[in-house]
């Protein structure tokens, strides 16, 4: 360790905070080395998302007039506004990035959180800090190193994207504002993550808190953006880091100063994080671990019940999240309907040849599509628990008992398949119950539950991909995240930039019937389900043939 201080006389001891930071540089280098795939590929992916989609859009619609003509109707639609925020200006530049500002801000925030968690709580969970902590490594060093790496990743993604957009010939101030939108969301989340990883006592708990925070931040800004400006709800957008990103309004208002809020959150979060660090034990959260029961509940008796029991927090968290999300989506239907009644919006949409009817249906379909992708993410995480159990040695305990491998493996597939269906049904129920109370034309319970269940085959295909990877190539299993991300982005951005049909067809998310706006088609649902089943079957076959410890 290069920063290790030589033994020194009693009087010349370094100031306490310096010693608490000792080793930060070495840890940063170590973290950078471990993430030499994850960080560069994520940054590259984000830059390609922003610059590539903007370039494709501008090639299709080079002038402001062509762009409003071609995309205005699509993007001014209230359902898109609720998901992605309002259009800052009717220019080609603004239209070219309207989806990627919010999507990218969210993904940058996820990247920031993931990097911070990986190098703090996860390391602590796996006991590696003890090894390092006994060397010349200060107490704050791992957190500060993780925050530095995460901030660098966020900075690279934002700045490179902004530069790329400017290089396309887009407005320089707007491009700077675009970078700042991502930076604000990303850096603020890094600050929040520094606190979150101190609160939870496990890496998984930290993931729950962190992603819960991001989901809440997204929900708050969606509600705020759906409300008329000047209202109290609209002002609520200023409490969410993702709301800040939207309020930068690149290629419109260009509020560059919003970056200050992101930086302040970063600094405040890190300060709070190190303060909490000084108050807790290594490996523990702020809350002490509670004692457990002396005997197992009678239901805990097989692989499936074990997997379900271990996912209890996930099930409860997602269940509550779905109810809240459904209630939010349902209650926003009123605002969406109002926006649709606004003569100015109607006029614009009509002039541009867009749809003016059944905004409510289009909106529900768009929201369900996005939530479906999130649920697929939960499915991937649950399948990957098989791989992490194998790595830690927990799988060995179960497999050394008379548990057939296929049953242990199957338990990790059945849970996400069934849970995703249950969660989507809950979502549909909540939307269908709440929607009609605020908007008379809103789809009812049956239509909403149907709409939510219709995306399940796509969710299952993603779960199937994760299953196949976990079964055949456990080291590559995290690539399931990449598959989910890319296929979802293709389905969201692809139609805007006229991606070739075969490419769109590769994404499972482009196939499910878009309910309740359209009609249900049986064939895609059957084909997707069959593909998912085939992927799972291949995964099981491969798993039975390979080493399992």
């Amino acid at each position: 360790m290069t920063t290790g201080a030589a033994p020194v006389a009693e009087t010349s001891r370094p100031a306490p905070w310096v010693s608490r930071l000792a080793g930060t540089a070495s840890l940063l280098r170590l973290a950078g080395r471990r993430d030499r795939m994850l960080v560069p590929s994520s940054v590259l992916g984000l830059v390609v998302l922003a610059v590539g989609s903007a370039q494709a859009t501008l090639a299709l619609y080079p002038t402001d007039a062509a762009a409003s003509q071609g995309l205005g109707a699509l993007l001014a639609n209230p359902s898109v506004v609720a998901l992605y925020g309002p259009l800052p200006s009717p220019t080609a530049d603004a239209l070219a990035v309207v989806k990627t500002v919010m999507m990218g801000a969210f993904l940058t925030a996820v990247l920031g959180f993931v990097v911070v968690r990986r190098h703090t709580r996860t390391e602590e969970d796996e006991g590696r800090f003890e090894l390092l902590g006994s060397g010349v490594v200060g107490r704050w060093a791992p957190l500060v190193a993780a925050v530095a790496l995460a901030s660098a990743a966020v900075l690279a993604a934002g700045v490179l994207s902004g530069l790329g957009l400017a290089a396309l010939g887009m407005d320089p101030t707007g491009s700077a504002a675009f970078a700042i939108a991502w930076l604000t969301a990303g850096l603020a989340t890094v600050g929040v993550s520094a606190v979150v990883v101190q609160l939870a006592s496990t890496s998984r708990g930290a993931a729950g808190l962190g992603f819960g925070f991001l989901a809440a931040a997204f929900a708050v800004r969606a509600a705020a953006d759906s409300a008329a400006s000047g209202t109290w709800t609209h002002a609520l957008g200023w409490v969410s880091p993702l709301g800040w990103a939207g309020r930068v309004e690149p290629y419109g208002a260009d509020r560059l100063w919003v970056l200050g809020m992101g930086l302040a959150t970063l600094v405040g979060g890190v300060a709070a994080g190190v303060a909490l660090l000084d108050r807790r034990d290594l490996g523990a959260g702020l809350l002490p671990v509670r004692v457990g029961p002396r005997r197992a509940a009678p239901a805990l008796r097989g692989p499936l019940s074990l997997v379900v029991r271990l996912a209890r927090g996930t099930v409860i968290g997602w269940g509550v999240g779905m109810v809240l999300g459904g209630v939010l989506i349902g209650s926003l239907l009123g605002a969406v309907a109002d926006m649709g009644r606004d003569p100015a919006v109607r006029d614009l949409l009509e002039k541009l040849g867009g749809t003016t009817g059944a905004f409510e249906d289009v909106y529900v379909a768009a929201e369900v599509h996005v939530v479906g992708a999130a649920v697929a993410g939960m499915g991937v995480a649950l399948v990957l628990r098989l791989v992490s159990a194998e790595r830690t040695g927990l799988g060995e305990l179960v497999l050394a008992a008379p548990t057939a491998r296929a049953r242990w493996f199957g338990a990790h597939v059945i849970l996400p398949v069934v849970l995703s269906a249950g969660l989507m049904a809950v979502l549909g129920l909540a939307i269908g119950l709440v929607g009609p109370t605020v908007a008379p034309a809103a789809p009812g319970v049956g239509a909403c539950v149907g709409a939510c269940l219709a995306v399940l085959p796509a969710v299952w295909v993603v779960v199937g991909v994760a299953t196949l990877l976990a079964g055949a190539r456990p080291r590559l299993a995290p690539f399931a995240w990449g598959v989910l991300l890319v296929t979802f982005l293709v389905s969201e951005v692809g139609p805007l930039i006229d991606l070739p049909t075969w490419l769109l067809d590769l994404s499972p998310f482009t196939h499910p019937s878009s309910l309740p706006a359209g009609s249900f088609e049986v064939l895609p649902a059957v084909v997707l389900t069959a593909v998912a089943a085939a992927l799972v079957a291949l995964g099981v076959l491969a798993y039975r043939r390979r080493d399992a410890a």
Partner: protein
Amino acid sequence: MSVNDAITVTGLRKSFGRTAALDGLDLTVRAGEVHGFLGPNGAGKSTTLRILLGLLRPDAGRVTVLGRDPWRDATELHRHLAYVPGDVVLWPTLSGGETIDLLGRLRGGIDEGRRRDLVERFELDETKKGKAYSKGNRQKVALVAALASEAPLLVLDEPTAGLDPLMEEVFQRELSALRAAGRTTLLSSHILSEVERACDRVSIVRSGRVVDTGSLDDLRHLTRTRVHAVLRRPPTAAEASAWAGVHEVVLDGDALSCAVDAEHLGDLVAALGRRGVTGLTCRPPTLEELFLARYQSVGPARAVAEQPA
């Protein structure tokens, strides 16, 4: 193979990428014995045990455990077998008691009385969550779960790593009880005194091969005895080294120390008698000497033997 063998392994090979973990390993564990499995770090002990459990797939070789092929019949085999892994990890959110119950039920039920006794004897606090246990206590959870089963075969990978001496004693007693009950135990260990006390036979593995197998007496017999003699007519060092089976000769005035192969001990004593022995001590090899000789890739005894004296 004999029907009385619980485990037979011949020519077992297993590689992980380029590392050859097992390189033609042979092992026989007789039914009803406690068999010690020893060897330096990374020798391939845990890998062998995982193959015996059917968790890893062998590259080559024949493996039979309780008459079954562990890779093909793993599930059925596991009904008759209990295992303590080398690195015990527990589910962070399950309590120790829940883990013991779960592992017992996975195995098709648990003997309540035995479970209660073991928890008491090992002084285990069952209410702690996996995350909160110390290393030794994690080990106890896995041990209680394995010992509470009625499996005829126990496969234990360094089961006492991290146990305090009192608990080590409890474990020893359990092991004797197992043997008395006619159950078979394969015990991988680095603790030589434990092996000496508990094991009927041992196999020593080095670099993926078994280099020696047999009872400790057999192994002792194969290892040199240290002899210290005071003589009226001492030989020169060169003369003494030329005697059959005599090594590591040190001559200090009329005192001679050397090491001698077991089969030549009688010859040496006779030779010493002819030279007017006035004092004589013979010491059998210590356990440490016995194992060190076999752990090191070139045993010290052999190395000395090859030196021109």
